């Protein structure tokens, strides 16, 4: 084992051990990343489903004002809506005029008021409801469905009376066959497209945000606690110290990102079993390049964050510097989502951060375009090198030895 590697690995090991002994760290870097996607993709739909089922089971009572129609009554009964009849109020300008019924609706004395008026050959209607109440919204929705069904029956009856075929008259242009089978993209490619819309963003934002805390703790934190001076007295060089700390932050961040991706894959597998999304089909070359892209991105982001944190004079100042810096990741990540990959010019792949995010999007679509790969690989290596140079410059500063505590 070379001397340099001994220094680097010893520093990295100690940093990791010390870092994971804090339960808050474990919560932030293990539990949250592991659970965030299953919570988002499994628990949230289940919750929404159960809420929807609860709403469906609700027995709703509305007031029906105005004219009566037996066919519509039948539709209401099918929609699990109970009603009581009332005459139309006298002092309203049109059916949507709530008038004296305002308080009844606002106090939810009734969940909705359905008003119907026969007018020569047509029917006029309105539904009075409270949009901030879920029960009232549900009542409105059921009434609209029932009215729609009744309207359909009325239209069909009229067409039949006129000796017309309702199906041919109302739907003269039709899709032939199964529309899904007309898509040339495979299920795996479609899944890749869906994932390419958020995986690069998740990796970018999570890598940057999860590296903040360890970066600050291992730099400005050490200065503030007065442990850095003793460390600088050791026979390792500042670059070895930087490499050790970089390795520790990168390992911690990678573990966080890996756990998050693990959670994501678990959620995708669950969704795939429910036929909501397929498993993406990505070639070995794309996976390999994807890993290279993530590693270069991590080198760059972690080195840059370590440098910024080391530049700070205190933990508080480091937090103030690195907190807003996350915006420099979020905005490019968002903008990159709307760039059209079919017509994207090669120079886009040379813009810092955007290049890696675009590369990840392309690779998830299994598009390995040599020119693009060359541009993002070279430009990213240059940016990562610059970030490492900046970090090395900060670590070589002589005033680091002065404790801030």
């Amino acid at each position, binding site marked *: 084992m070379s001397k340099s590697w001994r220094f680097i690995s010893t520093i990295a090991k*100690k940093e990791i051990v010390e870092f994971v002994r804090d339960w808050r760290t474990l919560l932030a870097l293990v539990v949250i990343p592991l659970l965030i996607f299953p919570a988002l993709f499994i628990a949230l739909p289940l919750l929404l489903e159960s809420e929807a089922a609860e709403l469906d089971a609700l027995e709703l009572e509305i007031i029906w004002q105005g004219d009566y129609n037996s066919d519509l009554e039948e539709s209401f009964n099918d929609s699990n809506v109970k009603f009581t009849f009332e005459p139309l109020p006298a002092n309203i300008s049109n059916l949507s005029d709530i008038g004296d019924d305002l308080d009844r609706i606002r106090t939810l004395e009734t969940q909705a008021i359905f008003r119907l008026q026969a007018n020569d050959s047509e029917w006029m209607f309105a539904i009075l409801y409270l949009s901030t109440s879920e029960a009232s919204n549900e009542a409105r929705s059921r009434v609209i469905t029932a009215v729609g069904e009744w309207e359909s029956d009325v239209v069909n009856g009229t067409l039949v009376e006129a000796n017309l075929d309702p199906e041919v008259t109302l739907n003269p242009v039709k899709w032939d066959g199964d529309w899904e089978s007309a898509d040339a993209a495979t299920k795996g490619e479609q899944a890749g497209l869906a994932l390419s819309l958020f995986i690069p963003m998740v990796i970018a934002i999570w890598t940057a945000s999860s590296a903040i805390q360890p970066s600050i703790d291992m730099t400005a934190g050490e200065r503030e606690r007065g*442990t850095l*001076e*003793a*460390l600088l007295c*050791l*026979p390792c060089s500042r670059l070895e110290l930087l490499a050790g700390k970089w390795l520790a932050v990168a390992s911690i961040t990678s573990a966080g990102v890996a756990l998050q991706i693990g959670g994501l894959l678990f959620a995708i597998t669950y969704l795939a079993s429910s036929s909501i999304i397929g498993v993406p089909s990505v070639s070995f070359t794309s996976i390999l390049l994807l890993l290279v892209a993530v590693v270069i991105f991590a080198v760059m982001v972690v080195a840059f964050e370590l440098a910024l944190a080391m530049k700070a004079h205190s933990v508080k100042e480091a937090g103030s510097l690195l907190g807003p810096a996350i915006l420099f990741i979020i905005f490019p990540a968002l903008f990159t989502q709307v760039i059209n990959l079919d017509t994207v010019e090669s120079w886009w792949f040379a813009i810092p951060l955007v290049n890696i995010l675009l590369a990840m999007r392309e690779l998830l679509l299994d598009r390995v375009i040599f020119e693009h790969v060359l541009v993002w690989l070279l430009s990213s290596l240059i940016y990562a090198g610059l970030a490492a140079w900046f970090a090395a410059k900060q670590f070589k500063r002589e005033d680091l030895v*002065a404790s801030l505590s």
Partner: protein
Amino acid sequence: MTESMLSLVGVGKNFKEVEALTHVDLEIKSGQVIGLVGGNGAGKTTLLRLMAGVMEPTKGSVLFKGERVSSMRSKLGVVPESTGLYSRLTAWENIRYHSRIYGIEDQVAWNRVSHFAKQLDLTDSLSRHTKGFSRGMRQKTALLRALAHGPDILLLDEPTAGLDVTSARTVRKLVGQLRDEGGTVIYSTHHLAEAQQVCDRIVIVHNGTIRADGSPQELLELTNKNTLEEAYVSLTSDKARLRTEDDTKESKLAKWWRIFLTGKTPNSMEVGEDE
């Protein structure tokens, strides 16, 4: 015959425009306990940091057995004033971390540490996290950490500052024992009595210069005084300056903000306070 361990030749150190140390010449020989004595801001810590190789001199050179000290840090053991212990690690883990970087086998370090831990009455606390340690226990742990790799020179920055009487006595006793065993210790303090008790040689540092260098007896003879305190006062009679490193700490941006918010420059603030 004692060999030369550390030599400082024409050493000067500037922090931007502030001159922290001016033309320091010092020769440290093996088997000595040397006390660096001076007030706050005298330049003791800067001198120790130069000797530890964590700072480079602006002028002159600091050599360890003829080599640049920054490349010979493995031969030194340093206890900074802040002790620098990691609170989420145990005392032994703190020590082991440093000794591994020095390339010392864990068992070798443990044997050496156990020997000194008994004398410092710290054996039972080696497996405890240092979070709850008292200042004395932290200082003792830092001492053990600095000794674990068997350094040729031990550099101690105010090792008894903030310690209770018993702990300070234990630390001094250990330094005495190291001297008896032929070790070389450089001991920074601002307590003359302590320096007189522990050190063979006292170097008086004042306003970044060395005012006197010799045994307690030699200092008395040099100044023609009866006590070391009187000797010290006569050697450092000019007004002490402000801490040199404090002058460089405020960034330009912070300075502009302060002036923008208060409308005062440092000089006008001092005048205001005096008034």
